[in-house]
């Protein structure tokens, strides 16, 4: 799974680098467009993602200590925060689209929708991964600590990618 973390990390770094190159070529356009975003969505989503990472880290530790009920509770919390992120993101996109800001509006918004959408896809895959972890934790016959940790590693990947996206799209100027 660390192989994936590094592959996807490198891939996203390439995407971020392309974004940065485009940004420095049209700084006013990007800045003016960025001003149309509401950073409260961004920071809220960041806090939600960080909390979900926290809860899955707690889940891994609980599982390691054999406290499987606690682990499942933390996993449920992770799932919940993931859902909150989904709802917030979709709400934000809807609001922006209603304002007329779409994928083809300008270069900044192309990047905005592109980066947040590809992150969103990774998040959706993350739900499947959480499902696999839940499946493992529920039955004493399974409970592979390795699978639990592998799943958690993937979730943290989704979290840290968002951390960088937040900085690049919402707050840097």
């Amino acid at each position, binding site marked *: 799974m*660390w192989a994936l*973390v*590094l592959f996807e*990390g*490198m891939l996203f*770094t390439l995407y*971020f*680098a392309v974004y*940065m*190159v485009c*940004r*420095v*070529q049209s*700084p006013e356009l990007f*800045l*003016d467009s*960025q*001003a149309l975003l509401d*950073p*409260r969505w*961004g*920071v809220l989503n*960041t*806090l939600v993602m*960080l*909390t979900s*990472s*926290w809860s*899955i*880290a*707690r889940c891994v*530790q*609980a599982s390691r*200590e054999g*406290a499987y009920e*606690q682990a499942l509770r933390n996993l449920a919390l992770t799932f919940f925060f993931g859902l909150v992120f989904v709802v917030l993101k979709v709400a934000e996109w809807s609001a922006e689209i209603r304002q007329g800001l779409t994928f083809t509006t300008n270069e900044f918004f192309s990047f905005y929708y592109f980066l947040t959408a590809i992150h969103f896809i990774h998040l959706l895959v993350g739900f499947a991964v959480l499902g696999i972890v839940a499946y493992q934790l529920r039955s004493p016959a399974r409970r592979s600590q390795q699978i639990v940790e592998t799943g*958690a*590693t993937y979730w*943290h990947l989704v*979290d*840290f990618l968002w*951390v*960088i996206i*937040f*900085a*690049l799209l*919402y*707050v*840097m*100027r």
Partner: protein
Amino acid sequence: MNAAFEKRLLVVWLGLSAMSILQWWLGARHGEAVLAASAAITVSVLVMALAKVWFIMREFMEVRHAPPLLRRLVDGYLALTGVALLGIYCFGMAS
């Protein structure tokens, strides 16, 4: 759960959250009519983001306890990302 570990995770989470709010505050308009560009804010916000990723990896992903090779790969990845993003930004804005 192991109390020390739980406390450590809590501290990390609080720290990450605080940094996020700080980044938000830095990037926000403070009564200005328009959003103004600022290299200082951009650089500090990006450095903070990379620091957050580093903490997520070291604490949540437990890279602290990982074999040296993985630690070096992770540090290398972050260094590469940092150099790429900050380098492109600084070089691009200067010219």
